[in-house]
C-alpha cells in the first residue's frame, strides 16, 4: 500500500504541475493537448463512478455528454439564455436522462452486458432523435454559437476572449483543470463515504450487499446520477470551448468509448485511474502522430485501432490498470508485502 503521505505528496505535485504548466509551455498546441487530455479525464471520471466503483459498465455515456452539450448550446441559441444559467439546466438534464435510463435498467435488474447494451441503445436512440427532430435540435447541421469578440463580455458569455493575453490563452485550460479537480474531489469524497462503500459492495456482490442492509437499487440510482452529472459537465465545457455541437459529436459512439477507455486503462475504481489513463491514451496518440506523421483527423479510426490494441493488452496483462502497475512497482521498491489492496 502506498502510504498516505506519499499519496498526498503525489497529488500535490500533480496539481501544482498542472497549475503551473502554462508558465512552462508556450506552444498553443501543447496547451490544446493538455485541454483535451483533462477533458478526457473528466469524461472518464464520470464513467468511473458508475463503471469503476459501481461495476455497471455503460457503453453509452455519450448520452450524458450529449445531453449536457445540447442543452447548453440550445438554451443559448434558441432562447438567448446566459451560459451561466443554461449550465444548470444542462447539468440537470444530463442527470434526468441518467435517472431515466438507470430506473429502467436497475428496476428490472439489468446487469453486465445487458446494461451495456441498453445504454448503447439509448445513446443511439438519442443520436437518431437529435438528427431527426430538426425543429428542436437543428438536425444534422448542428448548433453553432456566436463567437464573442468583446473582451468585456468574456466572463458573461463564458467565452474566454479576455483582453489579458494570459487569460485569453489559458482560460479554457484553467476551466477544465478546475472541473477535473472538482470531479476528482467528488470521487474521492464518494470513495471514502458510506455511499461509496455500499456502491463497491454492490459491484462485488449485489445479493450479499442487499443482505447486509444495502439498498442496491437506490445506491445504483445515486451512482448513475453523480456519474451523469460529471459527464454532462464535460458536455457543457465542450460547447463553451468549441461553440458547436452536432448529433455525431454529441451522441456518437466516440464519446462513449473515450469515457470508458481512460478509467479502464488507468485503473477502475480509483480516483487517479482516469487521470493517468487520459494522459497515457492522449500521450500515445500524440506520440503516434509525431512518429508516423499520420494525423488522426485524416485517418479516422486509426487512433481507435491503437486504443483497442492497448485496451486488449491492458485487460490481458494488467487488469487493475496503470494504477495497479504503479502499486506493484511501489511494493517492489519499498519492500511492502503484497497483502493489502489499495483503493484510492
Amino acid at each position, binding site marked *: 500500500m502506498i502510504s498516505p503521505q506519499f499519496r498526498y505528496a503525489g497529488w500535490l505535485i500533480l496539481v501544482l504541475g498542472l497549475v503551473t504548466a502554462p508558465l512552462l509551455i508556450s506552444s498553443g498546441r501543447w496547451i490544446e493537448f493538455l485541454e483535451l487530455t483533462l477533458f478526457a479525464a473528466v469524461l472518464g471520471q464520470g464513467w468511473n463512478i458508475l463503471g469503476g466503483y459501481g461495476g455497471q459498465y455503460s457503453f453509452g455515456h455519450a448520452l450524458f455528454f450529449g445531453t449536457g452539450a445540447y442543452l447548453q448550446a440550445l438554451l443559448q441559441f434558441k432562447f438567448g439564455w446566459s451560459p451561466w444559467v443554461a449550465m444548470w439546466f444542462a447539468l440537470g438534464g444530463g442527470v434526468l436522462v441518467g435517472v431515466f435510463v438507470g430506473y429502467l435498467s436497475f428496476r428490472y435488474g439489468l446487469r453486465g452486458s445487458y446494461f451495456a447494451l441498453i445504454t448503447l441503445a439509448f445513446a443511439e436512440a438519442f443520436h437518431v432523435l437529435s438528427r431527426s427532430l430538426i425543429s428542436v435540435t437543428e438536425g444534422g447541421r448542428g448548433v453553432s454559437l456566436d463567437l464573442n469578440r468583446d473582451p468585456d463580455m468574456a466572463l458573461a458569455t463564458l467565452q474566454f476572449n479576455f483582453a489579458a493575453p494570459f487569460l485569453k490563452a489559458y482560460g479554457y485550460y484553467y476551466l477544465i483543470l478546475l472541473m477535473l479537480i472538482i470531479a476528482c474531489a467528488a470521487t474521492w469524497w464518494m470513495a471514502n463515504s458510506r455511499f461509496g462503500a*455500499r456502491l463497491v459492495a454492490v459491484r462485488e456482490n449485489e445479493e450479499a450487499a442487499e443482505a447486509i442492509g*444495502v439498498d442496491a437499487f437506490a445506491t445504483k440510482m445515486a451512482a448513475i446520477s453523480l456519474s451523469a452529472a460529471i459527464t454532462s459537465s464535460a458536455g457543457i465545457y465542450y460547447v463553451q470551448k468549441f461553440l458547436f455541437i452536432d448529433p455525431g459529436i454529441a451522441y456518437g459512439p466516440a464519446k462513449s468509448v473515450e469515457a470508458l477507455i481512460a478509467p479502464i486503462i488507468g485503473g477502475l475504481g480509483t480516483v487517479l485511474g482516469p487521470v493517468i489513463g487520459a494522459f497515457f491514451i492522449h500521450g500515445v496518440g500524440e506520440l503516434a502522430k509525431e512518429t508516423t506523421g499520420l494525423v488522426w483527423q485524416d485517418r479516422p479510426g486509426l487512433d481507435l485501432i491503437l486504443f483497442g490494441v492497448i485496451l486488449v493488452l491492458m485487460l490481458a496483462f494488467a487488469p487493475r490498470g496503470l494504477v495497479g502497475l504503479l502499486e506493484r512497482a511501489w511494493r517492489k521498491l519499498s519492500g511492502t508485502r503484497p497483502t493489502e489492496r489499495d483503493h484510492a
Partner: protein
Amino acid sequence: MLKVEGASKWFGGLRAIDGVSLTVPEGAIVSLIGPNGAGKTTLFAVLSGFLKPDSGTVSFAGRDITGLRPHRICRLGLVRTFQLVRPFAGLTVRENIATGSHNRIRSRAAALGHAEQIADRIGMTAMLDLPAAALTVAGRKRLEVARAIATGPRLLLLDEVMAGLNATEVATMVELIRAVRDGGITIFLIEHVMPAVMSLSDRTYVLNDGALIADGAPGEIATDPRVIEAYLGHGAAARMSEAGSHA
C-alpha cells in the same frame, strides 16, 4: 422474536415450502434440519426478504415483514448469511466487515473502527488487512458471520456455516455461535453437522419436502421415527427398531 405462519412458496409446479409455521423465541438458538432439497434455504430466503412467499406471513419483533426487501429487513435487525459464501472478494476483511457496520453507522472512519471490534470478537484480527479472496473456506465462513454481526442484528440466520469445516474448525464455530448468542443475538440456523446441532440447539425443526414434520428438543428429534424415515427412506424407522429388538 420471529413468527412464521403458513408460509408457502411455489417454483412453477414445485412446492418448495408448504404451509410452514414456526417460532423462534428471543435469546434462543433454534435449528432447522432436513434432507437436501427439503426447502431449508428457500425458507431462509423467504424470511430475509429475498423471496416473497405465495401465502402466509412472517413477523419479526411484533412487526409484519412479509414481502419487505432484504435491506429493509436487515435494517430492522434480521440478517442472513449465505450457504455459498459471498465475500466481497476484491476488498479486505476490514472493508468487508465495515460494509456491514454501515448498516447502523454513517461515518466511514467509525465503521472501519467498528469492523476492528467485530473482527476482534470473531477472532479475525490477524486477517483484517488480507483481501477476502485470500481466505480459506473456514475464514470465509467466519467472514460471512462477522459481516452479518456487524450490521447490529437482533436475529441472525446462519445457513450451513459449518459445512466444509474440519472437526477443530467446527468446534471453534460452535463456540463462536454460542458467544454470539450470549452477546444478545437470537440465532436460527440451518445445519447438517449433527453433533453441532445437538450441542447448540434449544429447539430443532425438521423440514422435509417443504413441510415441517417434527419439532422439539434436539434429543427427542433424533429418535423421532418420522425424522429417521425422512433421512433414511420409507420404512427405515421400523427396520431400525426391528434390528434393535433382535440385538
